[in-house]
């Protein structure tokens, strides 16, 4: 080896102005950490979501209130600040159920639906997107047609019909939202795969004899990871709102299961007289979705800085 005279100098240097030296010495993971911990939106969003997740998971176990116990005689009690008492800190609903407990369980519902609906959408969208992007041609055209149909379909209409058909349950809601919300996954993975497909490391993987499946799993998918995580988060926010909207329209989560959208819809009947019934779940929904969205935006900035705008 020593006969080759052009070994590299010890001092590592860079040619580009666009890279800072200190950043260039970091591994991708370190780079990520550094960017993540200096991104305020991401931090606030993540903390909000973590706080709500903790409340949702731990709250119902710790607090002495039951989200399902009806007490018809004690219905529509106001929260403590509006003259209620500590037996029901946030008051009670139309059937005398504790509102705080229902809000907490509602957080579980929102998170569960959001997570699994986004997962389902992710599986559908990414599968279609990768196929369309990688194989192109007729497959791509078929997927595009499917996408056009999906986008052209008034989603709430079909959701309503499906929920009537199958009957409302959390699984159906997850299924409906997931099945109807994959376009973003599809569009982004499709174009990302089309781009990656043309990159030389894919050609290189082919020339070392990797099978198509191996290229999928080892070269293409890992490089979609960042984008998928980002879209997943954003779609989770969308799914949470969709669930709330479906429940608000009465075709989502079924009472007695508390869903924030359903609670808003129930509270709406007396929004002029018992406003907290509408306002509290609305604020909870707002906080959760904002947290998730801030997380998503933050992750986009951190994970895929090239598409920062």
């Amino acid at each position, binding site marked *: 080896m020593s006969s*080759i005279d052009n070994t590299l100098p*010890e001092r590592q240097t*860079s040619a580009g102005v666009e890279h800072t*030296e*200190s950043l260039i010495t970091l591994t991708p993971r370190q780079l990520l950490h550094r960017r993540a911990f200096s991104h305020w939106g991401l931090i606030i969003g993540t903390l909000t979501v973590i706080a709500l997740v903790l409340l949702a998971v731990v709250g119902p176990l710790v607090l002495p209130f039951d989200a399902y116990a009806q007490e018809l005689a004690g219905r529509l009690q106001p929260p403590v600040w509006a003259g209620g008492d500590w037996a029901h800190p946030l008051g009670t609903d139309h059937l005398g159920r504790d509102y705080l407990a229902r809000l907490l369980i509602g957080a579980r519902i929102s998170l569960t639906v959001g997570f699994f609906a986004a997962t389902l959408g992710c599986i559908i969208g990414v599968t279609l997107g990768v196929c369309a992007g990688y194989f192109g041609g007729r497959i791509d*055209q078929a997927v595009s*047609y499917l996408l056009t149909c999906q986008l052209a379909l008034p989603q709430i209409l079909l959701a309503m019909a499906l929920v009537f058909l199958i009957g409302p349950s959390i699984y159906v809601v997850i299924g409906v939202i997931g099945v109807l919300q994959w376009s973003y996954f599809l569009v982004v993975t499709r174009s990302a795969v089309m781009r990656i497909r043309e990159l030389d490391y894919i050609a290189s993987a082919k*020339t070392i004899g990797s099978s198509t499946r191996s290229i999928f799993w080892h070269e293409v998918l890992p490089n979609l990871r960042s984008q998928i995580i980002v879209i997943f988060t954003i779609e989770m926010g969308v799914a949470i709102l969709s669930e709330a909207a479906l429940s608000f329209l009465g075709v989502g989560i079924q009472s007695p299961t508390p869903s924030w959208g359903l609670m808003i819809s129930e509270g709406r009947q007396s929004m002029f007289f018992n406003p907290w019934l509408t306002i509290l779940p609305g604020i909870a929904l707002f906080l959760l979705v904002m947290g998730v969205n801030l997380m998503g935006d933050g992750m986009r900035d951190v994970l895929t800085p090239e598409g920062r705008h």
Partner: protein
Amino acid sequence: MNEHAPLLRVENLSITLKTPSGEQVQPLRGVNFELSRGEALGIVGESGSGKSMSMLALMGLLPSNARRDADSLKLGDKDLLQIEDTTFAREIAGKRIGMIFQEPMTSLNPVYTIGRQLIETATLYGRGTARAARARAIELLNRVGVPEPELRLDQYPHQLSGGLRQRVMIAMALMNEPELIIADEPTTALDVTIKAQILDLLADLQSELGMGMILVSHDIGAVSRAVDRIGVMYAGAFVEKGPLDDVFEHPLHPYTQGLLQCAPRATLAHGGPRLGAIPGSVPSPFKRLTRCAFSDRCPHVHDACYGSEPALRSAGNQAYRCVLDAEQLQSDNDHSDKGVVIPHATPVQVEHGDPPVLALESASCVFTTRRGLLGRSKDNRAVDDVSIALHGNEILAIVGESGSGKTTTARMMLGLQQPTSGVALFRGEALEKSTPRQRAQLIQPVFQDPYSSLNPLRTVGDSIGRPLVVHGVGNRASRRERALEIMSLVGLPERFYNSYPNQMSGGQRQRVAIARALVLEPKVLICDEPTSALDISVQAQILNLLLDLRERLGLTYLLITHDLAVVRYFATRVVVMKSGQIVESGETERVYTQPTHPYTQELLASISDPLRRSA
């Protein structure tokens, strides 16, 4: 003021950039130069040397996070430091200084017509009437060689070819009869034949109109075609300045010397002296330099270089930045140039008698595009009836301009692309009959862009070891050993084993790509523009490495390139392609000295060599 005042005077121009992470960067560290009226100055340097940045600074086009400092910045008697940016925009930009950029494809606004973009330059801020501007635009388009100028005015940029667009850019820069024209890498994105035409046009216009011109380029050969004086930049400052011929004939600064030595020359016969590569690469602009910027790459480095950065010294018409005397530098250069002639890697015996290792027989490749499920299909014949034979141990170059089909040819030979008709043969067997794994052990590629040829999520070690994993060779430990072995073979220190591509420079990445290609011990490397994304000093390192490896491992190379100099230096045999067809092929020297096809002759005529010009 007076007639003899220089057109442009730049004193101690520096730029400080603030990065998002809060660090300070100095891509430009005290640049001085003057330009007389009617003079053409060339500024050369590798990427990151600050040459383009200094021009952007002149024009007030720096990004918002950049700060410009200078002792003096004068255009004629106008002090550019004293005027507001809006005044500068109104009175200077586009009016007294015209500027031409690198990318003709993107530098024109795609949504407006050529005419509008030309005319608005001359009507902005009431500079002139639209009617006069239109007449001027037509006249200029005529002058810069755009056919049917009146028709062109109503066309959009995408309807013009790259060369025409660059001509339009030139016309646009000239709309207001500027005193100074700045051309920032005006020909880099163009094909070789166009490149020469544009440079000649610029030179003609400059002398004809008596403007000052600054021509910025990384390509010494290109600059030499159009300028009188030259400045060499390195790490944000000039290291050498002087009249073109002086600098080329008697380069003083070791960097200039190295740069001239490491550029392969299309005018020198094949098999000349080994390229004099400059080790390492340009220092990061993030270091506060308290020593000579070139010290860690310099062959003459000694203690004095580490004390402080040397000042510019003058020697005759030249100025250079080094602690050593001009005579000493001069003699060192002559010494290394003529004394110790490092020989070209010994030519390996080419096995012409045997059947070709790899061959294409009457191969054609047609791409069919179809719009929508019902759309009409459109055929695009990328490669048309091409036969190529690659023999053992030879270095066969396919040369051609963009769109000539050379990359598609390479992909067919790699088995990445099925020929539409014809056949690809490996040792006489149809390539498609072998499995991808069998092929992989015999043919491997090295791609053009070292940034996209490595999976960004894999460490260097993983990338190099990946082929072994795919082929199920060895265990984790043995693969690591093998990877380290190959890394040392291609000159990568062991500490890079766990690095990621984003932590490496282009040259280092290209070494990783070569290492990965070699790990399965193939017989043939197909190198598609392996150095065109690299700086010239790094290009020399990689070319030398490839030659060394060939010697050590008995490799056969198929080289795809557009660079005529690299071909003559590197290849034993050459194939010239145009529009998907082979127009000429033969031994390198034969083709370069006695080209038969007019297109080959045209290609060769476009070669610009600073030394041949000065000779």
